[in-house]
């Protein structure tokens, strides 16, 4: 069995089995499609409303991509600043945690007032909910740099910039990627919530479908959002595999 088959077959089998069981159970129970549409009904809605869903998905994906890119850049810079001294960390880290606990749904209307309707408010929502995991994980990575390697860099008179670019950041890369994996899923959630108030994308499709009693389309839109999250997760994993292929954790654990 190839590695691809090994990776794809078990989840695909789970998917097919779950879908089948759901289909049969929902049909057997005679559940109203208004409450819980059968998988086949959701699939039909996805096909039928593809002209609505695909452009919406593209809009949401764009906001998520920009939000996530912002989270990465800002998260890295913030983590580097926080790691620069214990004093800075003590002074600012509690406020970074704000991003983790902020109830995005509650402040979403404010985003519209600050950024106006449209993609900027959506990007802001995606950014706000996804930046903290990047900060927290990167900071943990920067803090975990092997002390012996720090000594080595000191011994050879490395500049602060060299320490950062040749030691701390590469060392923290696995943590950064872990943070991004978490951030990717959150950014999708943030974007959808942002779209509830800012307009556009799958968020509005969900609201429209709710208002028009199209539960099948609600599920189809939610599945498109989930697929977007999964795709981002897979992309981060691919980057991880490519960049970390050559390191082994044992070296870092040593």
């Amino acid at each position, binding site marked *: 069995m190839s590695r691809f088959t090994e990776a794809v077959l078990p989840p695909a089998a789970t998917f097919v089995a779950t879908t089948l069981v759901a289909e049969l159970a929902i049909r057997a129970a005679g559940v*109203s499609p*208004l409450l819980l549409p059968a998988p086949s009904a959701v699939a039909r809605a996805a096909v039928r409303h593809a002209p609505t869903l695909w452009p919406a998905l593209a809009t949401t994906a764009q906001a998520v991509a920009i939000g996530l890119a912002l989270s990465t850049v800002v998260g890295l810079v913030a983590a580097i600043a926080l790691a620069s001294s214990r004093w800075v960390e003590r002074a600012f880290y509690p406020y970074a945690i704000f991003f983790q606990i902020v109830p995005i749904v509650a402040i*979403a209307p404010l985003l519209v007032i600050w950024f106006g309707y449209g993609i900027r408010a959506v990007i802001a929502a995606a950014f706000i909910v996804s930046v903290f995991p990047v900060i927290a994980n990167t900071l943990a990575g920067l803090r975990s740099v092997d002390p012996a390697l720090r000594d080595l860099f000191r011994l050879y008179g490395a500049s602060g910039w060299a320490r950062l670019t040749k030691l701390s950041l590469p060392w923290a890369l696995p943590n950064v990627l872990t943070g991004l994996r978490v951030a990717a899923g959150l950014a999708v959630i943030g974007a959808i919530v942002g779209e509830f108030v800012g*307009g556009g994308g799958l968020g509005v499709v*969900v609201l429209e479908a709710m*208002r028009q*009693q*199209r539960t099948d389309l609600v599920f189809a839109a939610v599945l498109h959002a989930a697929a977007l999250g999964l795709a981002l997760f897979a992309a981060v994993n691919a980057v991880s595999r490519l960049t970390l292929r050559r390191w082994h954790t044992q070296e870092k654990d040593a």
Partner: protein
Amino acid sequence: MTNPLRTALGSALGSALALALACAAGGCGGETQDAAPAGAAAAPAGLRLALNWKPEPEFGGIFEAERAGLFAKRGLAVERTGGPGAPVVQMVQAGQVELGIAAADEVVLARDRGSDVVAVYATYQRSPQGIMVHAARGAGSLAELFASRGGTLAVEPGLPYVKWFEKRYDLSRWKIVPYSYSVAPFLGDPEMAQQVFVTAEPIAARRQGADPQVFLVAESGFDPYTAVVITRRESLRANGARIGDFVLALQEGWRAYLDDPAPANAVMGALNTEMDAETFRLGAAAQAPLVEDDFTRRHGLGAMSLERWATLAKQLRELGLLDRDVDPQSCFAEPVLQD
């Protein structure tokens, strides 16, 4: 100012799934609740009623009936539930509640999607939904407004009447954005227009210093019954008498509220502190002609006509919102009234 977007948004996505789960857990049959022996004993018969908004004048008759003991007099114990963002149609369909408040277009849409919900009482004969703009724009009608220089229109995504506007008027100069259940953006932008209930937001906006002008959606020719009491046809068959009693009590409640809204407004004001007493008073006055008109004077408060349902079904079909023709007769029912 209005409202908890949090609830609205949270439930928008969550409720469908939560309901689906509740359903999967076996709550979908619904018959069990309805099948309780009707009026078997002196114990009051329970009815659960899901509202789709906070206590506001649109529910005046319900709160008056409750306050004045009109439900109790008929042996009913009505338990209110729901609120902003509650998926009322789904709750009724799932049998979580016997009764709910929805708009007539939701009933037609739900029936098109295979649901069995029917309307038994129409609070508003003429829809209280409107579009609020700043009076300074100087528009004389909806047609004039949409033909003017354009702006931003904040409406709940998916509202059938917005599709209707798009069909009737040219909205290309208007940027349509989601309504966030707050008049704050409206107050801050002279080019902004938003959806309202004439009983609430325009009054709030005026009290916050704006000079709003409201055009009723009905003016455009799209005029669904609003704040409609819905139930399932199955419930009607099993518990027609009890639901009939509810409708009678509600009529009495509305009669009393129209005559003197103050007592029920006090009750609602205690539950909804975001709206002050004056706003309640003004809202009740503003809605009175929408609740009581010549038709209700002939047929009773809450009465509905086949013609109106047929028009609505036809309009929704034309807008492409229905997958098949919906029989207008099936959308509403006169419960079996007790003598």
